């Protein structure tokens, strides 16, 4: 069943990312802060931690597909999310092998993933001249608020998604054995 559920939830998060601004209080949106929602990335990180085995790369595959979709739907420059998301998720996949999987590790890895991805995106965008925001401003105006907002979102979805992902993982990989 996970075959259908995973892309469905990823698509749902992708859709919600764009509508989320309507739910947020206005003072947050109109202020100088720039908050980027990386909900798809967070779910991908959870997939890579709790669903993927050591030798399966479902999360990286989905990262490529949904990265490209974010590029198409929300930005006018293709390829940036498609490149950064899989790279970060692959890194998290590698790191997870070294650590035990528990809540704290998931939290730290997700925060790390968001920070890396957002910085990577900033670097690429400033390289191609899409933004002229200096590094220091970027750090205070965008990186820290984005990090906080996304960690908050992780705290919300973690209790809902983790048990399901673990269950799907055992269902999927115990019966078929290989991806």
């Amino acid at each position: 069943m996970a075959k259908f559920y995973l892309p469905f939830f990823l698509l749902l998060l992708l859709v919600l990312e764009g509508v989320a601004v309507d739910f947020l209080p206005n003072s947050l949106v109109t202020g100088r802060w720039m908050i980027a929602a990386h909900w798809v990335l967070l779910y991908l990180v959870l997939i890579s931690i709790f669903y993927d085995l050591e030798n399966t790369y479902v999360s990286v595959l989905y990262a490529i597909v949904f990265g490209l979709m974010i590029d198409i739907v929300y930005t006018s420059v293709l390829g940036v999310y498609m490149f950064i998301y899989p790279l970060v998720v692959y890194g998290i996949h590698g790191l997870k092998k070294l650590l035990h999987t528990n809540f704290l590790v998931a939290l730290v890895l997700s925060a790390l993933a968001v920070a890396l991805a957002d910085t990577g995106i900033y670097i690429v965008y400033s390289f191609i001249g899409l933004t002229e925001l200096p590094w220091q401003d970027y750090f205070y105006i965008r990186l820290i608020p984005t990090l906080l907002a996304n960690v908050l979102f992780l705290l919300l979805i973690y209790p809902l998604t983790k048990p399901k992902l673990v269950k799907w993982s055992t269902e999927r990989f115990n019966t078929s054995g290989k991806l």
Partner: protein
Amino acid sequence: MSFFRRTRLFIILIGFIVLVGLIGFSLSDRSNLTVGEEFLKDTVGWLQGVVHRPAEFTSSIFSNIDEIKHTYEENQLLKERLADHKSLLYEIQELKQDNEELRQILDKTESISDYEPIQASVRSQSPEPFFKEVTINKGKQDGVKKNMAVITGQGMVGKIQSAAEFSSTVQLLRGFDGSNRISVTVSQEDKEDESGFVIGYDEEKEALMLKLNSYESEVEEGALVVSSGMGGVFIRGLEIGIVEEVTPDKYGLTQMAYVTPAADVDNMDHVIVVNAADGNQQEEEE
């Protein structure tokens, strides 16, 4: 093991090449979206419409209660205004007739300020803050085309960045850079009108940068800025904002005015896409 490491490096390298290729492709000046992009944008747009409905419903309940509270006061005020309005209406009608007659004498029936409105609702905002873009629920099927101006009742908010079949992307005014200049007129009551270009958005001042054409131009704070229709992209007479501050630019050769946008972009639900009058001719040709 070394084989695996090599393939890994290889894949990252290929990914990097794909990245550069795709960026190059999307930054090139293309007039249309590819079929895949259009399909995806429409699908996600439709899903967002579905998600949007309950959210709109709940927020509209609260705003309705708020509005009922103020109804009586507003009603009194509106009644007073209505009397003024009527006399204004006659005046406008007369002016319009006058204008039409004068145009007929000149054999000029089409004006650069004529347009057909296309009503649309805002569906989503890009979660990537570097892109100041919103999606609306009207596309090519409704007559929306690239580069059309988008306005609200208060003034101009942006232009169509790209149009898919059933949805389109709007680039907001604060996302404008040097490559999308708007030719504008600064209209002042007691002085001559001045012309200039809106060349971009100043993040720190939260205002549009308006480069005035001549150094001698005298622009006062509070002057109204409207589009001039000279660029051929936007029609004449779209309200853009109000002059906040005038300073000499960094080389001292021209003057720079900072303009506060008239439209409140953050709280808009409904917008109007401005279909300029010459769009009719194109349709006939097709």
